[in-house]
């Protein structure tokens, strides 16, 4: 099976030849090319070359040309802060006061060089790999984006205090999100990761999410013309399984703080699971740790397909050494082949 067949079979709740593995390394491409992280992200060609090299090395079952979350705030006029040894972060909030929210307009993709680089990277990768390897696209949900647009504290005060303005902001963010997602699909992305960590019960009570972010998701996912997977960025969400199923999501990203076995039961065969290796801890794993963790995850969620092994955040930290990622790959080769007859 090629990676596309393997992933599609698993997504269809059947067992492929082996458990698909998504090594969601992004910045590691810069290291491989000997570039600073800032330089690396300054050209689509770098990310294309980086992703192809990383795929070769880790034999991941997808390409992940995501840049960084803050690129979406660049579209709204925000700045991105780059550092030497980690992911770029959004700079000062762009929506500082109520009037900014009343005035904010849906940005045009053409006006944002960062988003254009993202689309270009997808196009070039698609030209290289065709339908053999899935290419992941990604968006920040309209509901979670204001954490960067406004700052988290301000957004929480706003969420609890200003329902009318909230609806206006969601309408703008939703229009942007849908356009950006569909452009990635047109450029050649196979599916879209919908990063919505604010949905997580780590951050909001379920009842509050149902009145806010869930409504947004129910309305947004159907407008995206392709498969969408909800990702909580390592936040918890087990009690939201039914709510997620209602959005039409094809998969959910599971936190290392939750049990994949519980999620497997909760999901039924309604959506697939992605996860849940602990990326932060991974930094100091030995080959034995990697093997144990891979085995654990596969034993909990691999049976019958519907499972893709990945880290729990959707991005491997810069500090995780190649040896660990190679040990994960080797462990999947050893323990990931179907049928999983080693499992009692």
């Amino acid at each position, binding site marked *: 099976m090629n990676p596309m067949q393997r992933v599609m079979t698993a997504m269809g709740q059947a067992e492929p030849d082996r458990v698909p593995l998504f090594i969601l390394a992004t910045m590691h491409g810069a290291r491989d090319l000997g570039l600073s992280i800032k330089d690396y992200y300054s050209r689509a060609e770098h990310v294309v070359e980086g992703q192809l090299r990383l795929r070769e090395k880790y034999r991941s079952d997808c390409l992940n040309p995501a840049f960084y979350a803050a690129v979406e705030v660049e579209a709204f006029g925000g700045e991105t*802060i780059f550092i030497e040894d980690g992911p770029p*972060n959004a*700079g000062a909030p762009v929506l500082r006061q109520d009037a900014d929210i009343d005035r904010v307009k849906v940005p045009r993709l053409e006006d944002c060089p960062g988003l254009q680089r993202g689309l270009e990277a997808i196009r070039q990768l698609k030209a290289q790999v065709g339908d053999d390897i899935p290419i992941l696209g990604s968006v920040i949900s309209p509901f979670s984006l204001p954490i960067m647009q406004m*700052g988290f504290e301000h957004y*929480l005060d706003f969420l609890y205090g200003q329902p009318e303005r909230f609806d206006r902001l969601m309408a703008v963010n939703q229009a942007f999100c849908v356009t950006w997602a569909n452009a990635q699909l047109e450029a050649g992305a196979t599916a879209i990761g919908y990063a919505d960590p604010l949905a997580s019960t*780590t951050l909001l*009570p379920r009842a509050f999410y149902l009145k806010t972010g869930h409504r947004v998701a129910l309305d947004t996912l159907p407008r995206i013309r392709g498969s969408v997977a909800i990702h909580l960025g390592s936040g918890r969400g087990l009690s939201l399984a039914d709510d997620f199923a209602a959005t039409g999501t094809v998969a959910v990203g599971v936190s290392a703080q939750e049990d994949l076995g519980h999620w497997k039961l909760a999901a039924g065969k309604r959506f697939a699971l992605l996860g849940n290796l602990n990326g932060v801890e991974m930094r*100091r794993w030995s080959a034995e740790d990697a093997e144990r963790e891979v085995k654990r995850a596969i034993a909990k969620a691999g049976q019958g397909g519907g499972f893709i092994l990945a880290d729990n955040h959707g991005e491997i930290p810069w500090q995780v050494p190649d040896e660990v990622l190679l040990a994960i790959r080797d462990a999947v080769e050893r323990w990931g082949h179907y049928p999983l007859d080693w499992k009692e």
Partner: protein
Amino acid sequence: MLRGGADVDELSSDLRCALESLERSQVEKVLEAAIRIHSPLEVIEGLIMPALEAVGEDWTAGKVALSQVYMSGRICEDLVGRLLPAVAQERGSFPRCAIAVLCDYHLLGKRIVLSVLRASGFNVLDYGRMEAPALVARVLADQVDILLISVLMLPAALKVREVRAGLDALGSRTRIAVGGAPFLFDPELWREVGADAMGRSAADGEAIVRRWAGEGAP
């Protein structure tokens, strides 16, 4: 501690309910009732601190959400500032505490820890966001006993090492307590970077400060 029987239990369960549903006016009523019978410090230590600790524990256990932790901290901080302003003086000047966000642009964690500490009547210097060398200099200049550091990004968490090394090199005895998402995901990380303690929630931060304050100056 609060003395007395039924009325204390009643007050604390009322307070917890009010905080869970984020009913500010209800929280205010409970605190006003408590102040009529108890001293300000008693209200804080016997009522508010246990309530905020319970919220913190529930968050660590995945039972309540961060927005509830944030809002309940803010409500208590406000009311304590208004109804019980004298407590910070009652606590005296030891330990001298400061809090900072290290090399990171995410201020919410610090905000929450600060609310809980202030709601508990502690005076805390707020350094905002700082790089390691400037933080070391500031801590020495202010003769800080307890330095609380909050981070969200892993590279920032690793920079705690530089703060520790900088303080050690200058013979400082300042104790460092750290917290934030990377420390929750890797429970060994705080030791690795040379911190003296790690808090899983803002209420943990308050418990650490209280414990170290009880142990006296290092």
